[in-house]
């Protein structure tokens, strides 16, 4: 099986991206940022083009058109996030990345996760990050508005890291593209038969009640394993009268339009039915994280007075070199 896109194109994309990221990472020389940005753009654009061309060659292989803007947005925002010297902007670009990936989630018909991601990630976690950034960063004084702290202004070994990172990307994508062709999509029918509806008899009953297709004395027939007697393929529902003990079948023409299993149904059922223990563990992890964060953040650090003074002096010098020469006359 051939690769999905030509390895040469792939490695060219990787090299371009590596050079671009390596150049764009924060450093003293501001000019390289622009070069890096251009290279990254070239890399992303080239990649998009190659992928699009390849997809268009195959019938039905073309992804939704909206994939391309979301992908470009996500990757561009990611690149900007790691290259922007100001932490606040990094966080904001990350929110952009998340929103772009949420778009891709929608394209992958994971609507619930898409919106959950926006709410939890962009709405909660990233806001916490922003708070911490503001807490732990000195607000730049008016005199040095353009000042960027040394920590953020210069990145560490950017060339090496970018090289390693994109070598990793090249290997990953090569492996992926070579292997993914062997991964056939499952046929629809088998999945249709395993419809989640048979596992949700109460939901079906409530819906039938709302539609007026079922009386008070009737209920869905349960099979021995607790599943509802619904034939999803033939669209028939077997009901029984609990008073009379008689059964009747709702035929396909009576199948209500609204009786479908959506993304949320399937997700909820999967979560509760297949992963109950994992939920417990996740709950414990979250609880521990909450306790841990409380304990850690409450810890009171006593700095020695002279050490504090020394640090304050150092901070002042680095922030404002002229202050050294200004004598502190202490005029009130």
């Amino acid at each position, binding site marked *: 099986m051939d690769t999905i896109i030509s390895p040469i194109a792939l490695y060219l994309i990787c090299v371009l991206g590596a050079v671009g990221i390596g150049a764009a990472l924060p450093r003293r020389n501001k000019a390289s940022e622009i070069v890096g940005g251009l290279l990254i753009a070239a890399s992303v654009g080239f990649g998009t083009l190659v992928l699009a061309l390849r997809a268009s060659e195959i019938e039905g292989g073309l992804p939704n058109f909206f994939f391309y803007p979301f992908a470009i947005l996500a990757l561009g925002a990611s690149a900007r996030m790691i290259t922007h010297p100001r932490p606040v902007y990094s966080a904001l670009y990350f929110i952009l990345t998340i929103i772009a990936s949420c778009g891709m989630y929608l394209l992958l018909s994971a609507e619930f996760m898409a919106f959950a991601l926006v709410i939890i990630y962009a709405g909660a976690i990233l806001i916490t990050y922003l708070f911490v950034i503001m807490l732990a960063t000195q607000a730049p004084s008016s005199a040095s508005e353009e000042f960027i702290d040394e920590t953020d202004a210069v990145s560490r070994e950017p060339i090496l890291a970018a090289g390693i990172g994109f070598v*990793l990307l090249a290997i990953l*994508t090569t492996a992926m593209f070579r292997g993914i062709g062997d*991964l056939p999509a499952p046929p629809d029918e088998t999945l249709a038969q395993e419809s989640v509806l048979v596992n949700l008899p109460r939901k079906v009953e409530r819906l039938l009640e709302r539609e007026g297709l079922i009386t008070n004395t009737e209920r869905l027939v349960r099979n021995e394993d607790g599943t509802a007697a619904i034939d999803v393929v033939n669209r028939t529902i077997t009901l029984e009268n609990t008073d009379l003990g008689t059964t009747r079948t709702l035929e396909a023409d009576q199948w209500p339009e609204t009786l479908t299993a959506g993304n949320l149904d399937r997700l909820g059922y999967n979560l509760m039915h297949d992963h109950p223990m994992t939920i417990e563990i996740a709950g414990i992890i979250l609880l521990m994280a909450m306790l841990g964060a409380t304990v850690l953040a409450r810890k009171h650090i006593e700095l020695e007075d002279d050490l504090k003074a020394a640090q304050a002096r150092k*901070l002042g010098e680095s922030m404002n070199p002229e202050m050294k020469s200004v004598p502190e006359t202490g005029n009130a």
Partner: protein
Amino acid sequence: MDMTHSVQLAQLAFPDAVPSITMAHYLFVSAAMFVMGLIGFMTRKNMIIMFLCTELMFQAAGLALIAFGRHHLGADGQTFVIFVLCVAAAEAAMALALVVLLFRYRETLSSQAWKELNG
């Protein structure tokens, strides 16, 4: 019942599986995001940004999970994104608490200020 109707229902409940050629697109984006998170983690000295980069890597993993889930027409991929979210949230809470604590010790966010473990 005719088969077309059942297929329609199945299409409602379970949309088409993503063809492998399309999934490769999503996986490429996912891998690229992951690598950029990794590069950010390796290069940026600001501890908050380092943790943001780990969040980016989580995000990349989430995208891959969703894509694979869609490919297999199951809900497991999405379920695991929920857990990824949980872990990310826990990590964010702990990491930020740690960052605040470390910041109080050194009055700086630079990870270079902590190298007591050098040999």
